[in-house]
């Protein structure tokens, strides 16, 4: 077993050649069957993983910005709603006041008109009464004057007066 190790006895250069050729052949076969496809697959996987990481990062930032936008929109709409409500409130207040003052003014004018009417009526009634009294006194005076002429006509005068009263009432 040891004899073939002694340098100089026999050197199997053929073995050397055999190993070199078979090793190169082996490398070639491994490259075709395993090394090429496997390293390609590993590279593909590495690329895919890095792509996935990139896209995940991108979608994360997208989602964050979307959330921010949504929040801003929400806050905006809330303040908008608040202003709408307060506007409506102040409008209502204003309208109410307007209506009330309008009503008050209306009432005032109506009252004034009524008072004026009443006064007018009263004046009219008073003047009517005054005219009536004047007419009546003139009539009485004329009757009295007619009666002075004839004493015996006194009775007739009163009668006529009474008659006249009755006529006037009738009229």
């Amino acid at each position, binding site marked *: 077993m*040891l004899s073939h190790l002694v340098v100089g006895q026999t050197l199997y250069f053929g*073995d050397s050649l*055999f*190993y070199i050729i078979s*090793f190169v052949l082996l490398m070639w076969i491994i490259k075709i*069957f395993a090394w090429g496809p496997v390293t390609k697959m590993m590279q593909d996987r590495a690329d895919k993983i890095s792509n996935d990481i990139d896209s995940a990062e991108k979608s994360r930032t997208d989602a964050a910005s979307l959330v921010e936008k949504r929040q801003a929109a929400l806050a905006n709409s809330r303040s908008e709603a608040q202003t709408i409500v307060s506007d409506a409130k102040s409008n209502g207040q204003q309208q109410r006041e307007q209506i009330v003052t309008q009503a008050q003014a209306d009432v005032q004018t109506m009252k004034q008109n009524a008072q004026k009417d009443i006064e007018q009526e009263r004046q009219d009634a008073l003047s009517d009464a005054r005219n009536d009294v004047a007419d009546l006194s003139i009539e009485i005076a004329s009757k009295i004057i007619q009666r002075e002429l004839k004493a015996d006509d006194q009775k007739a005068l009163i009668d006529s007066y009474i008659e006249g009263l009755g006529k006037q009432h009738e009229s």
Partner: protein
Amino acid sequence: MSDDPVSTFQFLGLTFSTANVVSGLVVFLLVIAVVFFTSRKLAMKPTKGQNFLEWLIDFTNGILKGSIPAGDVGKFGLWGFTLFLFLFLSNEIGLFIQVATRSGATIMRSPTSDPIATLTFSLMTMMIAQFAGVWKLGYKAHFANYMKPFVFWLPISIFEEFTNFLTLGLRIFGVIFSGEMLLGVIWDLAVSHGIVTMIIALPIEMAWQGFSAFLGAIQAFVFVTLSSVYISQKLELEE
């Protein structure tokens, strides 16, 4: 043991050792079988075989990355992978299969328990290192490296090439050869006095076989590591 006959044959005017050729071929086919059956049905999501193969590729690439600059690792990846797988299986196969002819000539053992095989791989490493140096730095810079740090370093540099070549090849040979030889010695002990020595020898044999398997893996690793170190030395300009 020393008078064991060696089976040889002549082919194209060259002498071949039957043991080396046969065991080399067996390991050759074994390596092909391993990578062939683990690389079927490659997928983005790796399954059992692909996982193993990718782990192995990462492992050998990791060995290379330890010394070779990162940009050049890809060019030596296939070589490192093949070398590691071939040496590992070579180291281990002799521990489990040893075949001899009736006359006592071994025809099947670890290819790496023969110095001619290990020195061939060692020579291959040295050649690749030289070639890589010329390819990376150019002839002038490559051979100028031998005269660094000063001109009189030249003989030491040249001598270093030979010692590297010899130590790289003989280290793995020594470990594997001694491991197999001791297995043979234990076997001789086991059959020397019948059943009693068999029982005694069995645990020793098992322990030594396990240890040799471990050493075989270590030696394959060391061989690839040192090879990449020798190559990386040629890839950079010395100060």
